[in-house]
Structures are given as C-alpha cells and as structure tokens.
C-alpha cells in the first residue's frame, strides 16, 4: 500500500513538467557552480602542487558542490512537499485516500517515500557530477561517501519537515512559505551559536549545518546521524498525528 501511494506520487511528479523543470533548473545552476569551482581549481593547482598536505579535488570541488546542492534543495523541497498533502486537500483528491481503507501512517509513509524518490534523482545527479572528476583526477572516495550520506540525510530531513508542514494547511502557498521559513531557520540558527553560553550550544545542535558540515568533512558521528533520524522521525509522527486529527476531529 505504501509503495502504491509512493509510486503514484512519483509517477504524477514525473508526468508533470514540475519535476523536470525543477531538475533542469537545478542541474543548470549546479553545472555553473561546478564549472566555476573547476576553473578556480585549475588556477590554483600549480601553487597547490608545492604544498605538502594540499587539499585535493574532493575538498575543493566535491564538498562545495554538495553544499550547494543542499542549499538549492532547501529552495526546491517546499515546492515539492506542498503538493503532497496540502494541494491534494485543496483540489479534493485527498478524499480518495480518506475514503480508502488506508491508515494515516501508510499515507504519510507512502507520500514520504514518493518525495524521497524524487530527491534520490537529485542525489544521483550530484553523485554523477562528482564522480565525473574521476576521469581526470583522484577522489577521496571515503569522504565522498560521507558527504553523500550527509547530503542524503539533509534532503531526507528537509523532506520530512516539508511533509509535516504540508499537512498543516490546505493552502499550498502557505505551506510552501512556512516550510521554506522553517528550513531556512534551521539553516541559519547556528549564527547565534557564535555567542557564549549554554543556549548557543543548543542552537548549534539544532542547526542543520553543524551536523552536515561534519559529515561533509568526512566525519561520520552517530550523534549527527541521530540528529537527522530524530528530525525525520519526529516530523513523520507529527504528520501522522495531524492527518489523524484531520479525519477524526470535528
């Protein structure tokens, strides 16, 4: 049942121009940034050759590339997640799911998997771009894998947040703006972490980049993984609860 819902979600996405245009725009911007990084790398390469422990391709191209993917996805995910529930509530197609013998948990998991499927293509594109560097140089594959894991977790967590916000209102634009705001907030909250005090530690922990940056630098710590899993789990549970209350509470 979950797969049926996820399959329909993916199918609808890829049969509509939305997914393709998002992917095209994303690919264009990433390609441009990728080129710029390449350009600067080739410019400083002769100087790097003289250094002992010089940063390599992975440091100078792959890590910034993944960082860029995460930031651009931050802008795209609300557009995708608002369709999941909010737009269906608005257009009335959600009653198909409401009158079917399907639990709220399965609806949410199905929708979430569908969105993850779409995000997997983004992950795939960025991986292929990074791996294309192998044609002319060497990559630190371990670090690449850690970065990929980090990027995947950031996308998955953002998707879960977007999905939860999507259940809150039947106005797609409102949910898109709200999830955009929340995601951006989670991205920027560690700016306060520069200040001293216990509060700033908390802010730093809540902020997504704190954990993402560590993964990008090749450091896979279980505390960071727990942060993302906690974020995903909480948002999905909230979404299920919210959906249940939509159906049962007058």
């Amino acid at each position: 049942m979950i797969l049926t819902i996820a399959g329909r979600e993916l199918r609808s996405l890829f049969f509509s121009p939305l997914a393709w245009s998002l992917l095209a725009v994303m690919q264009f911007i990433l390609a441009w940034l990728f080129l710029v990084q390449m350009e600067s790398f080739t410019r400083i390469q002769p100087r790097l050759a003289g250094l002992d422990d010089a940063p390599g391709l992975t440091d100078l191209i792959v890590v910034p590339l993944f960082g860029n993917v995460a930031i651009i996805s931050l802008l795209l995910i609300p557009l995708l997640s608002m369709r999941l529930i909010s737009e269906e509530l608005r257009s009335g197609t959600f009653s198909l799911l409401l009158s079917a013998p399907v639990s709220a948990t399965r609806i949410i998991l199905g929708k979430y998997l569908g969105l993850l499927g779409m995000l997997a293509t983004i992950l795939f594109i960025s991986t292929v771009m990074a791996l294309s560097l192998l044609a002319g140089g060497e990559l630190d594959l371990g670090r690449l894998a850690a970065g990929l894991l980090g990027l995947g977790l950031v996308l998955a967590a953002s998707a879960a947040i977007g999905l939860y916000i999507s259940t809150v209102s039947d106005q797609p634009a409102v949910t898109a703006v709200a999830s955009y705001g929340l995601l951006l907030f989670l991205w920027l909250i560690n700016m306060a972490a520069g200040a001293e005090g216990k509060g700033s530690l908390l802010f730093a922990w809540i902020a997504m980049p704190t954990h993402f940056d560590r993964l990008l630098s090749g450091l896979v710590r279980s505390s960071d993984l727990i942060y993302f899993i906690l974020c995903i789990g909480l948002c999905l549970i909230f979404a299920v609860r919210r959906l249940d209350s939509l159906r049962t509470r007058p």
Partner: protein
Amino acid sequence: MKPLIKTEGLYRYYGDHCAVRDLSFELYPGEVLGLLGPNGAGKSSTLRMIAGNLAPSAGRVWLDGVDLQSNPIEAKRALGYLPENPPLYPELTVDEYLHYCARLHCVTRDLLAVAVSDAKARCGLDDVGQRLIGNLSKGYQQRVGIAQAIVHNPKVVILDEPTVGLDPIQIREIRSLISDLGSERGVVLSTHILPEVQATCSRVLILHHGEQAYASSLQHEYSSLSRCFLIRLAQPPALEAIHALPGIGHVDQLGQGHYRLCLADEVECSANKLIEQLVQTDWGLEEFVPEQQGLEQIFVRITAGEQNIS
C-alpha cells in the same frame, strides 16, 4: 438483515452553523436511497461524514456493521465514494488511475486487470483507457469518478451528485448503472434533480436546513397516491354516466373532455380494471394518467416551509 449503512443522531457544526442536525437512517442491500434537498441542505456534509471524510460533531456511523469512528479502516473496506468533485489526477491515464484506486482499496494483483476492465465497461470508458484524465471532457471525468467508486466492487456506493455535467444520453446510462448497482448492493446518492430520484431511487430522504424533513419509499408513494386518475375522452358522456361506473367514488369535470376520477375508498378496484371498463364504452378514451402527488410538490412544499407532511 444487517443494514449496510446505519447512522445515529448525526450532527455537524461549522462554527455556529449547524449543517446537519440529528440525522438517523439505515440503508439495506438492494436499496437506492436518494438524498434530496436544496443547496446548502446538508447533503454533501452528510455523505462526507458517512464516507469518513468529515468527522461528525456528534453521532455515529456504521458501514456494513462496522463502526466508522472506532474502526475506520475495516469499515471503509465496504465503501466506494464519489465526492462532489471527482478526486481525479489529471496527469494520469484512465487505466493508471483506476489501477491505483483499485490497489488503494486492496484489490489483489491477480484480480486487478479484471476489476479495472469491468469498471471501465460499466461506465462506458472502454475507448478512453489510454487517454489522460486531464484531456477528457467533464462528462467523461465524471464517469471516471464513478468508475473509481465501484472498481473494487464495494457493498456500499455513495455518489454525490453523480450526473452533474453529463449529457442526456450519459445521464440515462448512469441512471441505469445506478439502478443496476442498487440491485446487488446499497447506493446512496445526493441530488437536487427531482426526476433523477424518481428514475433511480427506491427510497427518498428530503433534507432541509440539515434536518430530515421527509422520508418515504417511492413505491409506496405511487401506490397510495394513484387512486386518482386524469383521463381525456373524445366523446365525453354525461358526468352521471361516468359516475355510474363501478368503483368510482368521485368525478371532477375539468373541461374539454378532461376528467379527474377518484376510486372509492372501500371498493377493491385497480387502475387496469378501470381502464378495461373505460375502453368497453364508446367514449373514446385518449388519455389515462395516474395522478401522482409528485415529489416536486412535496419538495416545494417542504422547502417553502411546511414541515409535517409525512
């Protein structure tokens, strides 16, 4: 017999406005129940509550004997629902969409193809299976919506204004489909088109301001009321001659050969006996119409404010 739908004291408030007030009814297999009412009478809210799309403010619903509030998933297995706006995904083809709906309603994979092709055949969608729903006309989209409601062969079919946007031929087809469905399972439909109820429903429930204002089985309606007949004669005889026919209780002359005959209450006399007698005379019977107190009159009287006719 176990009722397919049972509601008990359903209420629904939108803020202070009470859209549905104390509604209780039952639907048995083989019945087509028509919910009739003017706009804003609470028809759609009622259907949405029965279909589990809207939580009632008070009251309970059982579908096929299963409580919809405490065991929604089990209860919804018996349910096929067409909302006011058919829940269609314009980017899917009819086949893909119906497959999806059948899977959602737990149709097993080996029965999937049969279920979909059967639903398509019943709703006249055989030729459009490969077309995108978004490119279909309103009438075809409505048919896809109906196909979606019956693809998993549910025991209870709930149709909210099923013939909206259809042309007259399609309306006739859908009405015969509804009568067809009603022969094996229970169907509830809402409409504000009176002839539709007369054409398809075995029972009618008129809602007014969210309350049940009138409920009756339609057969009963006609049999009880058709003790009066409107006739037209080519060579009208004297009024006394008609009155002299056996079983006639009362005759009104309406002019130009038109008469209104009423059967005497105590006499066992049916319409066909009366016709037999009239044909045997040389009055030249040209018209014979049972006088019905049409649903329309009841409807108008109820919605105009008179509440207690039933």
